[in-house]
């Protein structure tokens, strides 16, 4: 009996030392004789006293509270709490695991406790090493996200408390009370997890909104850029314009009516047409009040015109809202327009893309894109299959994405057809 007790207390001290080492090791607080002694007097001694005079339960509470405060004062880092929690959780968990392993292999070393303590110590030291390695990754993952460390801390704290309550409180309860207690802890744990998940979802949502904003800003910048280009064109025209006036003045002063006629037809009419077209495009875009789409459209139109494609562009109604997320509609339109541009590559025939956005009589938003195409479309159905492309061309790239995005919206339909040499796609977004 006496040897048993001796071994028990010896290993109890060993366990305490292991914990102490693990705390210092994981929190990266430099270990020193002064600090160990400090811990001994501030934490260990009172715990033993409380243990003896007040009871186990109070001892544990004091132990947890004083340990947390002790290490926090030394490190001044929130992460210290997390580490202590995890060390404790690992300790409790491994204690149980050791028991299970011993029972499973039916190992009996006499006296019985020695086996338990030795196995536990080995496992614990190993686990702490592994944990310490893993923290590097955890820091990296969390980065500057403050709320993440708070969440981990609350989970850690909560789990530690539940673990300890499970182990120690249960011993003092009758069977009926245990059921009651279990229900309460389980319920609290469950609702707590729900709260954590709620916060996580909130954070993710925030993140998404931010991303969308970024995308919109990028598209808006694109739009500004194309406006700049148009503006430059206008300035160039203004410059040309004064030149034209001077030249015309020259003809008039010389009474050269024939020359004037010729000059007018050759130079002015054509320039005027360009200006009209530019003006038209500007005024058309002005009815579209969704910056993200504006950016996308103006960029794609310029891109198409640079490829020598004639772009007709109609927005007769004011479009200030659309029944689809801007990110999604921009993605869909981007793919469709890219395909339309791609379909007109390597052809000397007339190249044309027409695009219209308007409100239908039922107030749904309708977007139509019609374009000439160069390649052979055999089966429209197959364009929507992933990885489909006709020989040499990449038509249909992304159309399966379009299908996926569209299927997210019950109010959206897509019509795809070919008629009279035009490939035509219509998106109809029914009003809510």
């Amino acid at each position, binding site marked *: 009996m006496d040897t048993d007790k001796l071994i028990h207390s010896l290993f109890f001290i060993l366990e305490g030392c292991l914990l102490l080492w693990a705390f210092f090791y994981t929190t990266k607080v430099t270990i020193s004789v002064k600090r160990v002694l400090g811990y001994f007097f501030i934490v260990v001694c009172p715990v033993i006293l409380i243990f003896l005079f007040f009871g186990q339960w109070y001892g544990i509470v004091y132990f947890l509270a004083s340990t947390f405060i002790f290490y926090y004062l030394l490190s001044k880092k929130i992460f210290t709490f997390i580490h202590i929690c995890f060390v404790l959780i690992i300790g409790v968990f491994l204690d149980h695991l050791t028991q299970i392993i011993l029972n499973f292999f039916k190992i009996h070393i006499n006296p019985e406790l020695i086996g338990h303590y030795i196995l536990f110590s080995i496992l614990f030291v190993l686990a702490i090493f592994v944990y310490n390695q893993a923290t590097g990754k955890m820091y990296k993952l969390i980065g500057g996200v403050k709320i993440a460390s708070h969440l981990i801390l609350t989970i850690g704290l909560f789990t530690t408390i539940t673990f300890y309550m499970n182990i120690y409180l249960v011993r003092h309860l009758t069977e009926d009370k245990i059921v009651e207690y279990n229900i309460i802890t389980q319920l609290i744990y469950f609702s707590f997890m729900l709260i954590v998940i709620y916060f996580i979802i909130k954070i993710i949502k925030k993140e998404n909104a931010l991303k969308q904003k970024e995308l919109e800003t990028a598209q808006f910048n694109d739009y500004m850029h194309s406006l700049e280009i148009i503006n430059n064109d206008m300035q160039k025209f203004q410059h040309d314009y004064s030149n034209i006036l001077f030249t015309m003045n020259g003809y008039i002063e010389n009474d050269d009516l024939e020359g004037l006629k010729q000059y007018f037809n050759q130079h002015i009419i054509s320039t005027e047409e360009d200006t009209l077209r530019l003006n*038209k495009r500007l005024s058309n875009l002005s009815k579209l009040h969704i910056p993200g789409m504006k950016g996308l459209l103006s960029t794609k139109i310029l891109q198409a015109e640079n490829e020598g494609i004639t772009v*007709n*562009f*109609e927005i*007769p109604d004011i479009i200030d809202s659309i029944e689809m997320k801007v990110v999604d509609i921009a993605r869909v339109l981007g793919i469709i327009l890219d395909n339309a541009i791609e379909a007109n590559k390597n052809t000397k025939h007339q190249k044309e893309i*027409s*695009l*219209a956005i*308007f409100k*239908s*009589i039922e107030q749904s938003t*309708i977007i*139509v894109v*019609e374009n000439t195409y160069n390649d052979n479309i*055999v*089966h*429209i*159905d*197959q364009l*929507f299959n992933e990885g489909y492309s006709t020989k040499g061309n990449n038509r249909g790239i992304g159309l399966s994405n379009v299908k996926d995005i*569209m*299927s997210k*919206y*019950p109010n959206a*339909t*897509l*019509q*795809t*057809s*070919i*008629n009279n040499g035009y490939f035509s796609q*219509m998106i*109809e977004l029914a009003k809510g």
Partner: protein
Amino acid sequence: MRVVICEDNIGQQQMIFSRLKNYSMMNYPSVDFVLVASSAEEVLAFIENDKADCYFLDIRLGDGQNGLQLAADIRKKDVLASIIFVTDYSEGLNLTFKYKVAALDFIVKETTSRFSEQLIEAFESSIKRYEQLGQMETTNYFQIKMGELIKNIPYEEIYYFATSENIHKLHLSEKNGVYEFYGKLKDIEERYSHFFRCHKSCVINLQHVSQLHKKDRNVEMVNGVTCPVSIRAMKNLERKLGELFK
């Protein structure tokens, strides 16, 4: 056929009216010009209690009135009427005309002779359409609404109908297009003798089957797309295909 003309410029209005009237007196005496208006209000008042089969509308009506809006108002009341726009210069609104109000045609007021020619062409096509509407058997077509434009797809040209991931949306595939609309397969399978419900998610047209893969339990259509076949439908499908391609 009953015709309405709306043009705010009196000179042009009379020109259009007389040109059309003279032409129809010679060729189609039954055409009746029920209203020659110079403002959108007159037309709106007219369609309040009455209807016509063909409308010639100026796009830019004075006082900031818009022929496009007027056309939309007419469409609200009457999906079948022919609408022909008359414009001062090419508005560049071809797609809008076609899909927003399902306009039959639009005429640009260019030189007088060309204008008059186009006017008659448009008039002819509206008469042709009017006659077709009278004879058309709607029972042989599947109608898809693309904006206001109604597309008639003959049943025999349809490859298959399928449900999409979204419960209410159906998917129609034919040689020249793939369309989505709201509906139920149950309402479709009965409409045409060669339609066959081969699976809870598919109605195929037996005329366009290219191969039946019994082992994989699907059926390949002529466009290379495969549709699933349920165990229950397999036998029936085999029999029907046997009858059809004998």
